């Protein structure tokens, strides 16, 4: 049933795309068939892989930073009530700031290249992960914490042995949201601050008005993003069912 629905959704999107193509014409976008063909051509051309690998590397490092720092910040604030009172509004405010305006500052601080992309991706992903980790730590059953304190566990072991296992489902939701934001952040970083990577190809294609390239890259990004996020969502649901028993 679920596959049928997914198939219907994809068919509707393709039909809408084809209709838009008929309406807007070849100067604005390419038809679904041409785009898929060109995307396949890109994927089979050797010149494309350095860009893909560059983006994948930057994204992986940015995501690793966002996850580790996010959990660290969230747990630190979550374990101490006063720290949470002070820090949570700051986290929420930072989350809602239009971080794209910060890109010149990131560029001036890191220079053009890999570090700037990674930093830009990480600052997008870190806040949601921290906010969810904070929520998870605060909602932890206090008995667990008391037991850990009675056993005189140091804070690092409380975090690793008690907090992390208990908070996994919520943290995973944070990671799922952080994943998308980090991907967007990394791509934006590449659009402004790089000579390589998918984002760079995209901004170059925008500048040259290379519609085929724009459409093919967008298609590839959308397919990757939607697939990854569907997988993460499936894992997320499973974890929640496992932990809480609820559907």
């Amino acid at each position, binding site marked *: 049933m679920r596959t049928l629905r997914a198939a219907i959704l994809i068919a509707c999107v393709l039909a809408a795309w084809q209709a838009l193509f008929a309406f807007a014409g070849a100067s604005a976008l390419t038809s679904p068939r041409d785009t898929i063909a060109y995307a396949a051509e890109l994927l089979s051309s050797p010149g494309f892989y350095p860009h893909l690998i560059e983006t994948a590397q930057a994204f992986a490092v940015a995501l690793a930073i966002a996850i580790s720092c996010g959990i660290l910040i969230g747990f630190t604030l979550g374990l101490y009530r006063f720290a949470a009172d002070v820090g949570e509004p700051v986290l929420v405010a930072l989350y809602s700031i239009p971080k794209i305006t910060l890109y010149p500052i990131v560029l001036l601080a890191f220079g053009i290249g890999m570090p700037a992309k990674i930093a830009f991706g990480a600052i997008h992903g870190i806040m949601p992960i921290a906010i969810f980790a904070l929520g998870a730590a605060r909602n932890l059953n206090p008995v667990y914490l008391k037991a850990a304190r009675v056993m005189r566990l140091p804070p690092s072991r409380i975090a690793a042995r008690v907090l992390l296992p208990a908070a996994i489902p919520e943290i995973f939701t944070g990671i799922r949201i952080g994943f998308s934001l980090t991907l967007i952040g990394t791509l934006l970083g590449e*659009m402004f601050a790089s000579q390589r990577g998918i984002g760079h190809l995209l901004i170059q294609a*925008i500048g040259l008005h290379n519609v085929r390239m724009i459409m093919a890259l967008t298609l590839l990004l959308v397919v990757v993003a939607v697939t990854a996020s569907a997988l993460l969502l499936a894992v997320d649901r499973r974890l929640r069912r496992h932990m809480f028993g609820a559907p």
Partner: protein
Amino acid sequence: MTAGRLRFALALALVLLLEALSRFGVIDRFAMIPPSEILWHLGKILSGGEMWPAIGKTLTNVAMACIAAIIVGVILGTLIHGWRSLRETLDPLFAAYYAIPVYAFYPLFIVIFGLGDVPQVLIGFMLALVAVIVNTLNGLDRVPRVLIKTARIQRLGPLATALKITLPYAVPYIFTGVKLAVAYSFIGVIGAELIMSRTGLGYEIGFAYNNFDNAVMYPLIVLVLAIAATVNTMFFLWEKKMLARRRK
């Protein structure tokens, strides 16, 4: 209240630290100018007046994108909530939506609508819309059955039920969507302006950056952040007031 004071003190200490670091040359003037100078330049830019058209343009576009997203999002959310199979079909799309780099559609919009305000507003609208829809659905899910049964006993039609019973009940959840919509429409409009446009705050920031004009760039960045933070705080306070009234 002590938490608030400590937060203020920490922010102040951070600003003073930045000031000291840049005054003593630890941070290169080329990378950043001291906070006091940022404020001074900001005052000069605002009183000079030549930036006001750009500020006005950006804020108008953000407001249009945001208001359109809220209205359309609540309507679509209500419709989708009433149609179960449509909702189950769209759910995976909503879950994956924010992983799609919406900016990739920007050149397409420019070709279709021209390099005016429409593509930028559309990007902001697209980013904000799904947050409103998802939170509207979430709110409508939580309406107690007894309220819906009461509506049915009173023989309210679907429209009247939505307007008088279910949507008012869902307001706190919709409000979460509205706050996200504000943030997303800022991000969408300013990001689009940075990528390609002829006016607006994003364009001016990008222009100043390309000319290494820190005396314009930093004040404008601070201005954008200050506007976004102010709007957010206003919504936060409004929400708190609304929730307090509801609890009585």
